[in-house]
């Protein structure tokens, strides 16, 4: 019997199994791809919290992805070069320790989300889409023209950050770290969505007057969700930079924001595991279709359009529907 729950278990176990197989057959690139799937899905899971459950269409989540990436990259490169990052109130020359990097990422991405959320949530509808896009673009242009950290070129960080002495340059180890993060975040989101807070958040997507009339301030609910969402997407950015050992402004590009939305849609809107399935589909599609034709994006475009127009439930919705009819 296939239920949404089973689909999610199967997909998690398959990820793990494929990674172990890949390690056994010495296919490190496959592990890199799997790590990328997980990282993209974490980013989209973050976005899904506000978009899928709160109906806040943020077209600027690349801002958090990029900020997470830049924070990690900057901490790492300073540690690598032993250069001072700040000299006041205490001396700090970055860090190569994953825990510290993640802590900073969560802290700064939450702050950015709090700031952007407080501004953007004043608007709604189309204006919300546009203003989130615009703020992300602003950061993008800032990153491009900011000479200290490579500007348009970005910069390399050469080695991954370390965690409890694990050799993170080894593909499978790094994959497992990402996988562990995925589990934590899925667990968190699952818990949050089914909590009273989650119920209030889901209510805001339908009817603000009703939410207010039962004594809930929707702005606060949305803002908290936005902060949580930004922090999660930021973690994904941090992991992505570690995976590639490279930071560039393209992390902040609007195409990135668009792709996160596409992951959510393809997987299944408003489903906790939707982004994971969507990201897996996207990366696999890109790799395999991409090896047949360089014009794979034509087909991706057609798939997205058909999904929106005819199969709003995405892949998970399709499977569930298919099973039901059988």
């Amino acid at each position: 019997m296939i239920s949404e729950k089973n689909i999610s278990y199967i997909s998690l176990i398959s990820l793990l199994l494929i990674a172990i197989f890949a390690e056994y057959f010495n296919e490190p690139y496959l592990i890199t791809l799997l790590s990328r799937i997980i990282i993209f899905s974490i980013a989209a899971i973050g976005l899904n919290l506000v978009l899928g459950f709160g109906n806040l269409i943020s077209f600027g989540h690349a801002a958090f992805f990029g900020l997470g990436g830049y924070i990690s990259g900057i901490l790492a490169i300073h540690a690598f070069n032993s250069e001072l990052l700040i000299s006041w109130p205490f001396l700090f020359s970055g860090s190569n320790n994953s825990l510290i990097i993640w802590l900073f990422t969560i802290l700064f991405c939450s702050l950015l989300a709090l700031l952007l959320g407080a501004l953007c949530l004043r608007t709604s509808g189309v204006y919300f889409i546009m203003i989130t896009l615009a703020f992300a673009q602003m950061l993008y242009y800032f990153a491009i023209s900011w000479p200290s950290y490579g500007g348009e070129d970005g910069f390399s960080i050469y080695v991954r950050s370390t965690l409890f002495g694990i050799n993170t340059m080894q593909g499978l180890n790094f994959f497992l770290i990402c996988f562990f993060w995925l589990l934590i975040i899925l667990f968190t989101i699952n818990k949050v969505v089914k909590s009273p807070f989650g119920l209030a958040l889901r209510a805001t997507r339908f009817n603000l007057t009703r939410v207010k009339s039962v004594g809930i301030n929707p702005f606060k609910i949305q803002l908290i969700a936005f902060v949580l969402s930004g922090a999660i997407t930021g973690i994904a950015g941090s992991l992505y930079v570690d995976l590639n050992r490279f930071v560039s402004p393209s992390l902040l590009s609007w195409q990135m924001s668009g792709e996160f939305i596409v992951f959510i849609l393809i997987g299944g809107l408003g489903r906790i595991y939707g982004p994971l399935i969507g990201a897996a589909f996207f990366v696999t599609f890109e790799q395999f279709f991409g090896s047949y034709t360089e014009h794979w994006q034509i087909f991706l475009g057609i798939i997205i359009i058909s999904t929106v127009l005819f199969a709003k439930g995405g892949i998970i919705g399709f499977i569930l529907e298919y099973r039901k009819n059988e």
Partner: protein
Amino acid sequence: MTAELLIEQLLNGLQFGFMLFLMSAGLTLIFGVMGLINLAHGSFYMIGAFSAAATFAFFNSFWLSLFASFSSAAVVGVIVEKTIIRKLYNRDHLDQVLVTFALILFFSELIRWIFGAFPLYLDVPKILNGSIEIFDGIYYSKYRLFIIFVGLIIATFLFFLIGKTNLGIQIRAGQYDREMISALGVNISKLYTLLFGIGAALAGLAGALIGTIQSVEVGMGEPILILAFVIIVIGGIGSIKGALIASLLVGLVDTLGRFLIPWVLQTITNPSDAMSIGSAIGSMLIYILMAIILILRPTGLYGKILS
């Protein structure tokens, strides 16, 4: 800095502003009247430019290629509206964002498939080549003047169309109350198709005009699309007047910012840093402008209607 330089930069800003207006006019109408957020508007810009380049390669005529640019963009626009876009009018913004995002992928890749990845180039016609002395000692490119001229004509045409014709009245009425104008006997879906076609045609024309002095390549539409979005948010969704004023504002702020800020910074730091920091601030200026305007006037300068 000389007055000549400043005037030439002002003209550059105007020229850029009018180009942005061609893009944003269609976008703001589509947005305001149909409530559609159309990310694929940049694709019509690109399609216009490529049609012009292809026509130019065959017939070697600038004027013919200009004609090809807006007519082909209009045709593609009408086809897309009739097959896909009209299914989106009653959908939520998320669906519109996704489908039009997918259309960008589709069209960009299709054009790459047909024309290859190498950029194409067009030539400025002889009559518009070189520069002209507009005031005493102030020279300006004839072609760029031509662009300003076209922008003025289109702006006049649009103001006339929207302000004075029956079609314009119906468009504005539809913006206000779609159901009612329909109940009074106006075929709203035909109106939408027409409007979408006009918007696409304007974008296509802009693509050809700009492609002629720059280059025609895949992905050329997206940077200008985002600027066009900023413009309609600043100007107010649905307002042609707002789009014109915001276009010129953005064109001038961007051009002058790009040139003045490094120039000022150069007096305190070296050229490379002045350029970097200057262009950082310069490119953020527009967005800062937009954020400020949205905070002061959440519906833009001339926006009245919130859907």
